[in-house]
Every structure is written in structure tokens, then in C-alpha cells.
């Protein structure tokens, strides 16, 4: 008896959370968008700006209840509660009740002509009608409550009594078994197989941009540019441990190099794209070096804020009246000429995709070589403990400056490609959010990890494009996903292992924890 009660209570607790989330979703009008997405799965398109059939709203809340029902039931079973499904009913029922009360109150108010849109923007009369399933408020409320209670409870029952868990286990074991099979293992070790894989990859790089249309070329080109940026910042933050929040400054320097050298206004220099690439990279690297010089004493968050300031200074200056004649001011620079190759224009979306793939491949190669070199190990030493690194003979100033300059060079290349591809750049391209995005992708991917950067770039720049289906909710979902990703994988999606070289050489050395940058906060 007592156990059952605790199951009920835990159900109520998780039900409260679900009820709050559900209320939030209802208030921002997400129910309609979610329903529209579901409707599309069933082949029914909803015109933009209109609401889908109300039945899909019911399906939407039923799905939420199912999710909650399964998770509460499983959680209760883990605690060995007597009837775990009770918690499913309790949780889904409570959330359903909250929704029902909301529908009842709002439905009645709206029937009497109330309108809360001045405050709660999403609550249009049509949306309220959608929530009440086009019925009387009391009927709509009852339907919602019943659907949630039943869907959640039954899902809980199903999760407990149907052997889904064992199916999942079986699939897992099958995969592991295949993975460990001698055949598949030797296949993976086979160098021809490896070459084959690489060949497929190269062929894909060649053919895919021709096939999948300009939109995906654009999106993946953007991801590629952010891979470049991420690789650069990874050297600065991930390897040498300097937190830089003004990375966009170097990006801007690259972008404006190509813009000012290759646009008719303001200077009409027309030096050509390839010269701009070289100049952009060199200028960015030089500025990284120069910025670094006076700031080598700063650590951690002080460096972060100073570099952030540097980024903002560059943006404000680019935009200011002071430099308008030189940079084009807030208007930016239009009509930037793209690259040409052997006298032929080389600036279609496909050509740019090739260019970006080439740049990314080159950058990946350089970055991974650097990481495993003597320089890379010196950086890691500095990151782990600067004082100790200095004491053991690493010239910290020199290596930190080198990291800054190299990282900046990557950003310069990224900026050149970015501006040339858009044929436009302006101060609004170089806002703080760019730095934040790049830093996020490095950390989401896993600090110091080259493949992590690639994954992170997909997550940070690919995800918002994929989330376009969610229309106005996409950044909301993106923010939430960023939090969830960090909580689920605080080390990053693909954390870096310790360099294998060290392990081989010094098997007896005391193992440190795998969280390199966990410093004690200084109060």
C-alpha cells in the first residue's frame, strides 16, 4: 500500500513538471505548430498562417502524455514501486487536468468576447477554438483530459507489461555482436576497406554538391565555414586554453579584406579573390598576434572579456562614421567579386561548395597534425597548468601567441569565404553572436577535439536550419537543445581522449582525471 502511494506521488510530481511545460507550450501557441507538423506527417499540409485541424492538436497532447507515461512508469519501476503504471496515470492525469482547466476558463472567457492578445500574444480566438476541439469549452476540456489520462496511462501500462525493453536490448546486443564479429573487425582493420571508405567520401564530396540543390549547398557551406572557424578557435580555446570571446574580430578582418579588395565601392581595387585570401589570412594572423602581445598576462575570464571588447570595438568601428569612407560604414560592401579560375568565373554555389570542402579538408589536416605535434603538446601543457608548463621549459608566451595567430588565420580564411560567397558583408555580419556560436560549437563538440568541431558545427549551424520547420519556435528549441546537450554530454559530443603517445611512454604516470579544465573557482 505504501509503495503504491509513493508511485502515485512521484507521478504527481512529474505530472506537475509536465503540466508546467504543457502550459508554457499552450501559451506560446506551440500546440498549433506541433499539430501542423504532425498533420504533415499524415500528408495534410497546413497553409502557413492558418491552424491545422483540431484533431491533430489532440494527437499532439496525446503524444506528450505517452512520453510522460512511459518515462514515469519506467522511473517508478526502477524504484521498485508496486504498481508503476499508477504514476503514469497520475502524471498524465494531472497535466491533463491543468490543460482542461485552462481550456475551460479560456474557452468560456473567449466565448464572452474576451481577448488576451495584448498580453499573451498567441491566444487568438481561433487558437482557443482549436484548443477546445471546435466544441463547447466544457466538452473540449473533457476530451483533452480524457485523451491525456488514457494515452499516458495506457502508455505506462504498455511500457511495463509489453516487452519493448527486451526488444531494445536485443537490437543492442545484435549491433554489439556484429561490431565484435571477427569478420567485421578485420574488415574495419583492412586498409583497402579504409581506402574504399575514403574514396567514397571523396566521391561524395565531388558529386553531392551537384545533386542536392543550392539550399543544401548553402547550409552545408555555412557549416563548412563554421568548421573552419571552430578549428581555429579550437586551437586557441581547446588546445592552448585561452578563453577568447572576440573571435569574430578575426572573421571580420578576413571578410573585409576580400570585400574592400574586390568590390567596386568603396575602393574599386579588384585585386582578385586569391590575393584577398592570402591577405585576409595574413592580416587576421597578424592582428591575432598583435592583440595577444599586451594580453599575455591575462587569464581565463579576463581574457574573455577583453577579447569580447576587441570584437565589439572592431564592429563599432566598421560601422562608425569615422571609417565610413574606408569600410562602407553601416551599409556594408556590396557586389563583392567571387573567385575566378583560369579566367573562368568560379563562383556558383557548387564551386563555392568545392572551395569550402577543399579549405575544410586542408584545415582538418593542418589542425590534426598540429594537435599531435610538439607544438600541440606544448599547448596542452599550457592549458593544463601554465605555471608548470613554464617551469618545465615551455615558452608559454611564444606558444600562446602562436595559438592566437594560427587560430586567427583560420578565422580570416573563414571570413574571406563567407563574404565572397554572400557577395556582401556588413557590420551586422560580425556581431557578438558569431563569437558565441563558434565558442559554443567548440565546447558542444568537445574541447580540443577535431572531429568534435565538425560535429559541433553541424549541431550549431546545421540544427537551426533543420529546425526551420518549427518557424518562429526554432531559436527557442535551439536554446533548449543547447542546454540539454550540455547536460547530457558535459564533455562534449565527441570528447578528446588523452594523447595515446603519453600513455605508451609513461605507463606508470599517475592518471589524472579526464576533465582538464576543471579549475577551482577563485573566490
Amino acid at each position, binding site marked *: 500500500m505504501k509503495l503504491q502511494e509513493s508511485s502515485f506521488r512521484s507521478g504527481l510530481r512529474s505530472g506537475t513538471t509536465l503540466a508546467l511545460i504543457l502550459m508554457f507550450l499552450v*501559451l*506560446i*501557441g506551440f500546440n498549433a505548430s506541433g499539430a501542423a507538423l504532425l498533420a504533415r506527417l499524415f500528408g495534410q499540409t497546413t497553409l502557413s498562417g492558418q491552424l491545422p485541424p483540431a484533431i491533430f492538436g489532440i494527437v499532439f497532447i496525446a503524444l506528450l502524455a505517452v512520453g510522460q507515461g512511459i518515462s514515469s512508469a519506467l522511473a517508478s519501476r526502477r524504484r521498485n514501486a508496486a504498481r508503476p503504471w499508477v504514476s503514469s496515470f497520475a502524471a498524465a492525469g494531472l497535466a491533463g487536468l491543468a490543460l482542461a482547466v485552462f481550456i475551460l476558463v479560456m474557452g468560456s472567457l473567449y466565448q464572452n468576447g474576451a481577448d488576451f*492578445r495584448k*498580453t*499573451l*500574444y498567441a491566444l487568438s480566438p481561433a487558437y482557443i477554438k482549436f484548443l477546445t476541439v471546435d466544441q463547447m469549452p466544457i466538452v473540449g476540456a473533457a476530451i483533452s483530459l480524457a485523451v491525456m489520462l488514457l494515452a499516458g496511462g495506457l502508455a505506462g501500462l504498455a511500457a511495463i507489461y509489453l516487452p519493448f525493453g527486451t526488444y531494445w536490448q536485443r537490437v543492442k546486443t545484435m549491433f554489439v555482436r556484429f561490431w565484435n564479429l571477427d569478420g567485421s573487425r578485420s574488415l574495419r582493420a583492412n586498409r583497402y576497406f579504409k581506402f574504399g571508405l575514403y574514396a567514397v567520401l571523396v566521391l561524395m564530396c565531388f558529386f553531392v554538391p551537384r545533386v542536392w540543390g543550392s539550399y543544401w549547398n548553402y547550409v552545408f557551406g555555412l557549416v563548412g565555414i563554421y568548421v573552419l572557424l571552430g578549428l581555429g578557435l579550437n586551437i586557441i580555446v581547446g588546445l592552448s586554453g585561452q578563453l577568447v570571446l572576440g573571435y569574430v574580430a578575426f572573421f571580420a578582418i578576413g571578410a573585409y579584406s576580400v570585400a574592400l579588395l574586390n568590390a567596386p565601392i568603396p575602393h574599386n581595387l579588384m585585386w582578385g579573390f586569391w590575393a584577398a585570401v592570402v591577405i585576409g589570412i595574413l592580416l587576421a594572423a597578424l592582428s591575432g598576434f598583435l592583440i595577444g*602581445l*599586451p*594580453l599575455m*598576462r*591575462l*587569464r581565463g*575570464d*579576463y581574457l*574573455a*572579456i*577583453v577579447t*569580447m*571588447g*576587441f570584437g*565589439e*570595438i572592431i564592429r*563599432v*568601428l566598421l560601422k*562608425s562614421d*569615422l571609417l565610413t569612407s574606408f569600410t562602407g560604414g553601416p551599409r556594408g560592401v556590396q557586389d563583392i567579386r567571387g573567385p575566378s579560375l583560369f579566367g573562368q568565373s568560379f563562383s556558383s554555389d557548387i564551386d563555392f561548395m568545392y572551395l569550402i570542402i577543399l579549405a575544410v579538408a586542408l584545415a582538418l589536416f593542418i589542425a590534426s597534425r598540429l594537435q599531435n605535434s610538439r*607544438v600541440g603538446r606544448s599547448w596542452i601543457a599550457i592549458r593544463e597548468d*601554465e605555471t608548470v608548463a613554464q617551469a618545465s621549459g615551455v*615558452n*608559454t*608566451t611564444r606558444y600562446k*601567441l602562436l595559438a592566437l*595567430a594560427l587560430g586567427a588565420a583560420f578565422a580570416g580564411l573563414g571570413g574571406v569565404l563567407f563574404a565572397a560567397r554572400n557577395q556582401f558583408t556588413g557590420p551586422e555580419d560580425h556581431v557578438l553572436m558569431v563569437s*558565441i556560436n563558434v*565558442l*559554443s560549437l567548440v*565546447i*558542444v563538440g568537445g*574541447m580540443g577535439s577535431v572531429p568534435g568541431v565538425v560535429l559541433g558545427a553541424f549541431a550549431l549551424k546545421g540544427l537551426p536550419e533543420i529546425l526551420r520547420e518549427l518557424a518562429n519556435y526554432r*531559436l*527557442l528549441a*535551439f*536554446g*533548449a*537543445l*543547447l*542546454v540539454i*546537450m*550540455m*547536460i547530457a554530454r*558535459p*564533455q562534449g559530443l565527441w570528447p578528446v581522449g588523452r594523447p595515446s603517445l603519453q600513455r605508451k611512454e609513461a605507463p606508470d604516470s599517475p592518471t589524472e582525471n579526464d*576533465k582538464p*579544465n*576543471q*579549475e*577551482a*573557482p577563485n*573566490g
Partner: protein
Amino acid sequence: MTALSSVSFKTPQLVARIIRSVIGIIVVVWAAMRIYNVLFVNQAYGLDTWVRFGITGLIIGGMYALIAIGYTLVYGILGMINFAHGEVMMIGTFGGYFVLEALAAIPAPTLANPDLNFLNAQPLLSILLAFLAGTLAASLMGYLLEKIAYRPLRNAPRLAPLISAIGASIFLQNAVQLLFSPQLRDYTNPDALARGTGWSIEIAGSQVLVTYTGVLSFVLSILLMVGLYVLVQKTRIGRAMRAVAQDKKTAALMGVDVDAVISQTFIISGALAGAAGVMWGIHNGLVYYFLGFIPGIKAFTAAVLGGIGNIPGAMLGGLVLGLVESIGPAALGIDFQLKDVIAFLILVLVLIFRPSGLLGAASVEEKL
């Protein structure tokens, strides 16, 4: 690599010091010349204008300081930058806004004035309620933020909570936009506290207005700062907070409930941000979902300027930043468009010579 090898780094400390000194001297000489020019050659502004700059700077500096304390408290205890702090402030502004709107909708007719509403009948009480609502909303937000987005990352790598905070910040901005529409709304003040009214003081032959809302904000922020200082230095909670900031493990061994203290810290920093948010609304008059972004960045800058983790430092940093922003461009004879450039340049200069901020403790390297 090769390019760098040619540069001699045998005495990096010395080289760095020379570079620092040269930069410092150049900047100081340049600034002095500009200021001399503005003050004595052009004589662009009279005393009244300087007083106006000062008043503006102090008012906005007080708000920066309150928000900066939130950054500093959290940093002191968790060692993380609470990037969503600006959004916490924005939530506080909205809390106050809705209370004031509601009170303005309640009629409180008197014989003399049948159209009177509660807001104007009881302005003091209304403002108090607004501050209460704002601080409550922001504290709750701070508490939830810590519980949902940061607590699971307590033992994660140092930068993981930062990204979580950035995600939370994006989430909160968009959530508020979707809930309340992207509309810019006006803060409803009681008539007695209407924006743009105040005491007129005659300085150098012209009237300088000191607004009621400005004075209210400044006095309140000073009071709150003093209150916070007492709280941290004299009370049990404050002692526990300082203990946790020093050493979490030892504090736990001494019987301090570390999780509770961290929650309290977020609640306190949220309350201060909420109060600053309501002041922001009452004094500046606008509330919308993106409101917290700029003050958040500025206050973060202020916290670092003063020495992050150091509470008096945050107060000083906030006031200095506010004054620099309002006086700096004028004193140097530069367009106000470039005030952020000046603010950040001053920050860089301060940090070049004092790497731990104005009042920060000496860093490890300095001790070496």
C-alpha cells in the same frame, strides 16, 4: 613557427612590460591631449553639460552595478559566467511591468477625482509592489535557472555551464518573445513619478534636470548594495556563501549545505537583477524581450573591470563604466557612437596594468 622564432623571447616578461608601458604612455598622452583640447581649447561644454553627463552616468552606473553584483556573486561561488543574467533582469522588468499595468487598471475613485486608479492613488505602495513582483520573478527565474541548467553541470568541465547559460539565455529571450509578443511596451509609471519630471537645479546659468526616477534608481541601488554588503559580511547566509566561495569541500565538511547556499546565491543575485530591471523600466520606460542583452553584457564588463568575484569591485566597476560611457566620449571629443569603443579600451587598459581588475586579488602570476 618560423616567423616567431626570429623574435627573441629570452626575456618575455621584460619585453611584455616594455610593450605595456609603451602602450600605456601613448594612450595616456593621447587622451590627455584630447581632454585638454576639449576642456581648454574648444571649451565645447559648459559646467552644466558636465553635470548632466555625470548624473546620467551615475544613474546608469548604479543599475550596471546591481546587475554586475549578480555576475560576481555567481562567479565567486561557482566560477562560471552566468550568461543568462541579463535575461533574469529582463524577467524582473516584466514582473514589475505587469503589476503596474494591473494596478493602473484597478479603479480607486475619490470624490475629487473619479478617474483615479490605484496606481496614482497609492503611488508609493504601487512602486513597492512592482519592485516586489520584479524581484520575486527574477529570483524565481534565477533559482530555476540554477536548478535546471547549471546544477547538473556542477562537476562538468569549466566551460560547459557557460554554454548551458548561453542556451538558457537564447531560450528565455525567445520564450518571452513568444509569450508576450515582440512588441515594445511602455512602462506605466504613477504620475507622481512620471519620467522626465524632477528637480531643476541651476548650474552655470542653465537649468539641469534631476529626474525623480533617476534619483529613486540611484538611491535604491546604493541602498541595495549596502544591504547586500551587510548580508554577505554580517549574516549567517553571508558567512556560508563566503565559505563556499573559498572552498566547497571544506565548507561542506564544516556543515554548510553547499547546494542550498548556491541556490541562495542565485536567488539573491536574481533579486538584485530584478530590482535593477524594475528601475530600468521605471527610469527608461521600455520593456521588451531583448531588453536584457545589452545591460547584461555591460554589467559583465563592469564586473570584470572591478575584479570578478569581488563585490565592492562590481559596484565600483558598474559606476566607473556608467561614468565612462557618459563622460568619456565627450571628454575625448569623440562621437557618442563610439562610446563602447572607449569603454572597452578603458577596460583593456585597466586589465593590462591590473590583470585582475580594479579591486581584484593579485593573480597567481603576479605573485611569482
